[in-house]
């Protein structure tokens, strides 16, 4: 084994960007081999990310030595663009790699039409590259661009099935995304006008609570809320995620939305940190409670499997919002939030993949008529259930650890004397019940007595990948300490 060397981190980060872009470009230029390129690329990028994370962890435990800023083209900020690798981005990169690898493998089975394959893979690889770049970006305007890369490729993938529902969902998704991006961009412009720099670190050093910052914060946060489908701006999510192809839904719900949330978090931990007020925390927290309730109720109402899963994303993101007021009391809670997002992404992706398998087998995903297929495909149902358990936040899964830490933070707020903390605690604890209710809705038909019909044959990839990913989601509970330690390597963060 070659000992990991912290010196490699800058080249490693830039190399990751280059590698993922290279794979995407190659697949674009040579669509006939796109799936092979994609598979090899997925393996390569995943390996690269894992190697990078090992190196990164090795460079710890001092956040300053581990966190790396890379000047692209050799131009330091404020002139040039900086890539920024720290504990936060590293964690999300690893998450992206895991989910994306699973999705890639799944897609090998799911998208098997020769012609569709050529269209699917380049877009998918661009999406992945966009996500990698988003997490690495350290420049406000560059964030806008990477967000656009992500949203355009995501929209294209949503419309991929070409049905009316899908295209309609895609149009709404696109318009929402553009609106969000423009709002974000307006915020960037305001900040640039005020401070004359775009680099996040430099901006952070210069911001104080003023009208520009406030307006910029509002614009950027609202835009990102729209993109992250945070309640009550979530309405585009279910149509888009519900009608996209399964692997795309998995990535959208698991990663793309998380990416937007990541940005919100990053901004509020850095640039906008001086602006935060208790009222702001309470508003966001209330929105989170609303999201939990509304998303869950809609998931309980929805009649289609993938809609249920999509609404569950809305609900689960409520937790992330609820965490905001907790972060105001205990700044260290942000790590919990990220861990929750990671665990949720893993679980949600596997649920979507499992739903895709079922949908493929049955030819539709109307829950009421899915019983026979559910009964005949215990493996997929098991994956669905296992990931569902993680969503509920029950042991032994990653969801449990995340819920534990959230609850700990919430109770900490209460113990610190915050009355409204009780509401957060209730929401955090009660959300699991609602989650249980809708997970049960999905899984229970498998246990009904009745006809069994395996439906259309599915490829082994579609059979096993959801289970594997669900297992990863479940076992993420064991990675709690590791993740939190990685996150601790974020300089400047509490």
């Amino acid at each position, binding site marked *: 084994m070659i000992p990991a060397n912290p010196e490699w981190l800058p080249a490693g980060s830039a190399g990751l960007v280059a590698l993922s*872009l*290279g794979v995407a*470009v190659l697949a674009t230029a040579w669509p006939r081999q796109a799936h092979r390129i994609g598979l090899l690329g997925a393996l390569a990028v995943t390996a690269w990310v894992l190697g990078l994370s090992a190196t990164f962890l090795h460079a710890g435990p001092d956040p300053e030595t581990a966190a790396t800023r890379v000047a692209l*083209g050799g131009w330091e900020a404020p002139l040039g*663009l900086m890539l920024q690798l720290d504990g936060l981005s590293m964690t999300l990169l690893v998450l992206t790699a895991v989910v994306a690898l699973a999705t890639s493998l799944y897609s090998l089975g799911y998208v098997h039409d020769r012609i569709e394959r050529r269209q699917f893979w380049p877009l998918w690889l661009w999406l992945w590259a966009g996500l990698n770049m988003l997490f690495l970006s350290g420049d406000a305007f560059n964030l806008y661009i990477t967000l656009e890369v992500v949203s355009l490729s995501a929209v294209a993938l949503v419309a991929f099935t070409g049905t009316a529902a899908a295209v309609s969902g895609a149009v709404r998704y696109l318009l929402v995304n553009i609106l969000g991006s423009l709002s974000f961009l307006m915020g960037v412009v305001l900040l640039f006008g005020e401070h004359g720099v775009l680099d996040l670190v430099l901006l952070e050093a210069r911001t104080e609570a003023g009208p520009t910052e406030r307006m910029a914060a509002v614009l950027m946060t609202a835009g990102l809320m729209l993109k992250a489908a945070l309640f009550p701006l979530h309405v585009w999510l279910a149509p888009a995620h519900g009608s996209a192809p399964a692997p795309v839904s998995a990535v959208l719900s698991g990663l793309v939305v998380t990416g937007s949330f990541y940005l919100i978090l990053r901004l509020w931990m850095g640039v906008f940190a001086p602006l935060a007020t208790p009222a702001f925390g309470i508003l966001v927290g209330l929105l989170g409670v609303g999201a939990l309730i509304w998303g869950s109720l809609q998931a309980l109402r929805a009649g289609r499997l993938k809609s249920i899963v999509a609404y569950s994303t809305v609900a689960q993101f409520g937790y992330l919002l609820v965490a905001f007021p907790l972060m105001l009391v205990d700044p260290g809670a942000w790590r919990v939030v990220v861990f929750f997002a990671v665990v949720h992404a893993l679980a949600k992706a596997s649920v979507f993949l499992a739903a895709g398998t079922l949908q493929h087998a049955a030819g539709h995903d109307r829950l009421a008529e899915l019983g026979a297929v559910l009964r005949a495909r215990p493996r997929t149902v098991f994956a669905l259930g296992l990931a569902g358990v993680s969503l509920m936040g029950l042991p032994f899964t990653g969801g449990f650890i995340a819920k534990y830490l959230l609850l700990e933070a919430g109770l900490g707020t209460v113990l610190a004397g915050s009355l409204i903390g009780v509401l957060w605690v209730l929401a955090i604890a009660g959300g699991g019940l609602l989650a249980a209710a809708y997970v049960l809705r999905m899984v229970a038909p498998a246990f009904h007595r009745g006809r069994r019909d395996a439906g259309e044959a599915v490829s082994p990839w579609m059979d096993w990948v959801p289970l594997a990913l669900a297992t990863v989601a479940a076992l993420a509970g064991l990675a709690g300490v590791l993740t939190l330690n990685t996150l601790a390597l974020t300089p400047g963060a509490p």
Partner: protein
Amino acid sequence: MNALLVLFDLVLLAGIVGVAWRCLASTDLFRAVVLFITFGLLLALAWVRLEAPDIALAEAAIGAGITGALLLVTLERLRSIMAERRSGRPHSPPPDPTGPHALLRALHDPLPEHRTFLPALSFALVVGGLLVTALWHQPQSVGLEPVVDAHMDVSGVDHPITAVLLNFRAYDTFLELAIVLIALLGAWSLGRHDLIPARPAPGPILPGTLRLLVPVAVVTGVYVLWAGSHAPGGAFQAGAILGAAGILLVLARPRQLPMAPAGPLRLGISAGVALFLLVGLYGLAAGHGFLGYAEAWAYPLIILIEVAATLSIALTLVALFVAGRPAGDDT
């Protein structure tokens, strides 16, 4: 302070806002699109006033030109789809009971006008007001002009905007190229391209004009590209001009779209990003950082990238205009 200039500014702004207002308020789509194109041209004027000739050029070529063309062709397509539906041609797909028609049955009435009017207006006013407040409180920041200026000599080009675009913030530009490409990939993934709506057989005027215009456009495009290194202009503007020429060509021969060979077309549209990436990788390997150049090689590399980018942009814009992938792409 020049009162005349101020007056000009005010009038221009009033015009821009007025045109935008009329555009959004118009009930006729065609009228709206035409107003939007006007809006783009007025904007170009404003950019000139703001000492941004590059942007003005780009706005005119891309914002007004290409976008206008795209909008117009879209209107044309929509109109033909509607007409086709109304005429109920036998080969139009039968209504699918579970499909779009079921959705359409449930199609909601938009909210009554009076119920969105007040909230929308007040929200727009408040948001605008807040924005203005924020802007008015901003200090006169220097921006990055001095920094850019200080680094111009090592940038390899003479034009600061090109230096920023292709050297200091080459990553952004690279991604911008990628976005154009992704938009095309998205459009292609929707299906094969269809015909541009049938038109009466073009008379002699259009081909004749084209015969004159296309060479001029190509020359202009190449010039704008070349000029980019030291004066307003550059790959995007050039690509837009070339793309416009391509669009004109397409328009002139609606029934026989050039059957672009799939492989080369793919190579062509991805040439810009591919080359850019290769150069970037070279920089990474050579120790200048990803997307970095050795100072001595900066100029030729930038020109190389610009050429490839221009080509790709032009091709991509034409392909976007055509919309839908060429049949050759599926074989």
